């Protein structure tokens, strides 16, 4: 017995040598992430640190260059929460909007990805069209579009349309033509849901524009599902409806988590977000607005982080991971 045990122990000890070689190799990983780590510590951390620091100070930029900071404690936060007129209401409205938009964007992009994944004539063309917004509707183009819709709201556009809102009008017309509202009302699903769905259809241009990357991620997920699983399903006589819910949906569920989190991040960091627009406005106009705005956005950031944690926690309970060994 004793001798056997020794024999058993000996190889275990020997195994340590290759382990150290592995570790040596693993350490080479540091060289790959070095540029990120170096700049992260040297540039990004000070930026974050300063931003938090600024939110506790009053800022005075000197004429000679350089700046003075006067410590004022939690005053900026207090001002944002209790003195500033619009912040809390904008924040509440923004978060409500975010919560309503997330399921819409995720479900829409999943649906579209499933459609674009099917083999059919014209698939390449449709894919190319669907990903146009990913490439083009960002940055300056986005802000031009926004100023367009602002013009419409102010009522200065008559007769001629300037773009985005034309599609929305079309969607509106389709809705009223189909009497969707009446249809839903007859189904007795509750006015709130009806309003929500109608609101989404009215906002379809916006949703399409914001779900490009999510569609790509879903498409990648769909592509990675082994076709053999579908084949065996077909042989067993499953309909495509059953296949979707029993195979596609569980297999794609990790992607749903990724996309939900991405959607939260994307919509709350984008400039079209109303809270961000409000904060940006404070940054540019209010007295001491530059530091006040950083206090505001840090609070917003905290709330969104909490939201992400909540969503991730909730969703990860239902996620199915296929072991790929």
């Amino acid at each position: 017995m004793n001798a056997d045990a020794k024999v058993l122990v000996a190889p275990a000890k020997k195994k340590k040598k290759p382990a150290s070689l592995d570790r040596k190799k693993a350490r080479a990983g540091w060289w790959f992430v070095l540029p990120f780590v170096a700049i992260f510590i040297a540039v990004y951390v000070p930026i974050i640190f300063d931003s938090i620091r600024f939110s506790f100070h009053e800022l005075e930029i000197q004429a000679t260059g350089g700046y003075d900071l006067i410590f004022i404690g939690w005053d900026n936060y207090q001002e944002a929460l209790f003195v500033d007129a619009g912040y809390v209401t904008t924040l509440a409205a923004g978060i409500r909007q975010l919560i309503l938009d997330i399921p819409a964007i995720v479900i829409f992009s999943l649906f579209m990805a499933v459609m674009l994944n099917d083999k059919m004539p014209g698939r390449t063309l449709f894919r190319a069209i669907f990903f146009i917004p990913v490439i083009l509707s960002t940055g300056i183009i986005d802000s031009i579009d926004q100023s367009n819709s602002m013009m419409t709201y102010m009522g200065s556009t008559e007769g001629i349309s300037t773009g985005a809102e034309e599609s929305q009008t079309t969607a509106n017309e389709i809705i009223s033509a189909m009497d969707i509202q009446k249809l839903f009302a007859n189904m007795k699903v509750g006015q709130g849901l009806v309003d929500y769905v109608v609101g989404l259809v009215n906002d379809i241009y916006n949703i399409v524009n914001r779900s490009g990357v999510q569609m790509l991620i879903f498409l990648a997920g769909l592509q990675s599902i082994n076709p053999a699983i579908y084949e065996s399903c077909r042989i067993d006589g499953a309909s495509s409806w059953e296949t979707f819910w029993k195979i596609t949906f569980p297999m794609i569920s990790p992607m749903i988590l990724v996309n939900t989190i991405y959607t939260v991040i994307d919509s709350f960091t984008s400039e079209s977000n109303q809270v961000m627009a409000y904060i940006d406005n404070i940054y540019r106009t209010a007295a001491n607005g530059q530091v006040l705005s950083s206090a505001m956005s840090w609070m917003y950031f905290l709330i969104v982080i909490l939201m992400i944690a909540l969503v991730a926690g909730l969703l990860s309970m239902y996620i199915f991971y296929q072991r790929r060994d």
Partner: protein
Amino acid sequence: MDAPKVLKDNKRKIKVEFERTSLAERMKVKYLSGSFAVKLIWKIFRYLLLIGISYIIIFPFFVKIFGSFMSRDDLVDATVRLIPKYPTLDTYKYIIRENSYFTAFFNTFVLSTLCAFVQTIICSIIGYGLAKFKFRGNKLVFMAVILTMIVPHDTIKLSMYMNFKFFDIFGIYGGIAELLNLEATSIDLINSYWPMVILSIGGIAFKNGLYIFMMRQFFKGVPDELEEAAYIDGENVFGTFVKIILPISIPMMITIFLFAFSWQWTDNFYTDLFFTQSGAILMPRIVKVPTTLADDSFAAQGLYESCIKNTCGLLIILPLLLFYSYLQKYLIQGIERSGIVG
């Protein structure tokens, strides 16, 4: 149906006679069944939906294109809805001439190419490091990557500006400057390409977290055996990366390059933040009304300016559109092969 008749021709050959269902019967079974109807309805529905949404995506572009050819007469003419009656090229002419389109094009091209190139390489390297090496702190670094993605740019706008306006790493430059009795204790990097380059080298520029994440997922799908084979052949870690891994990840890298290039091209956040001088002309800067076309006495001036701004937008995305139509097949390919799995 009767059982098939078997006729014996000779010893080695038999002939089987089936009673074949008529063509009409077969067609009936194939096309009049419930499942066919469901499939057909689904197909029609799918095409309707796809075409409808494509219309929603494309139509605004048409409106903008038509609007860009409109002259003032069109805007006050109530009968003009979409197609201009008095088309003119003035809008394009004055934007290109007075908003210095070509300078902006050149500057932005240099900046975007530089940033996209650096970001693609750096994000691949970082993604590879995170995907394939289990060094201590791997998870921590990944968390940091996610953090850079989550923190909104507006939050750190001011401190980013300050840090690059008075650029100094841990006071090292200030210390050296003091030793040498220099006046400036920090470097002013505003109005140069340096802030963008520094952020790109670190992989913390705009949306770089997403690129790193995508590359990491891609490399996770690359089988380890590939590298092990290279190690056995005596290649070191870096040689393996350059000679084996990079060539197979080209579709994915083109995808990243496409994203990085076009998002940098239209970016107005960093452009506004880091280029405060009016002299630095980049693409977002050309979005303004040319002085020749500015005329407040004109009744529909607001609408006209909106058309002009849309034309600026069109001029900005025109090169991107060409770029996209050329590279979009790689976009899908790269994503399809990435095998992004949670």
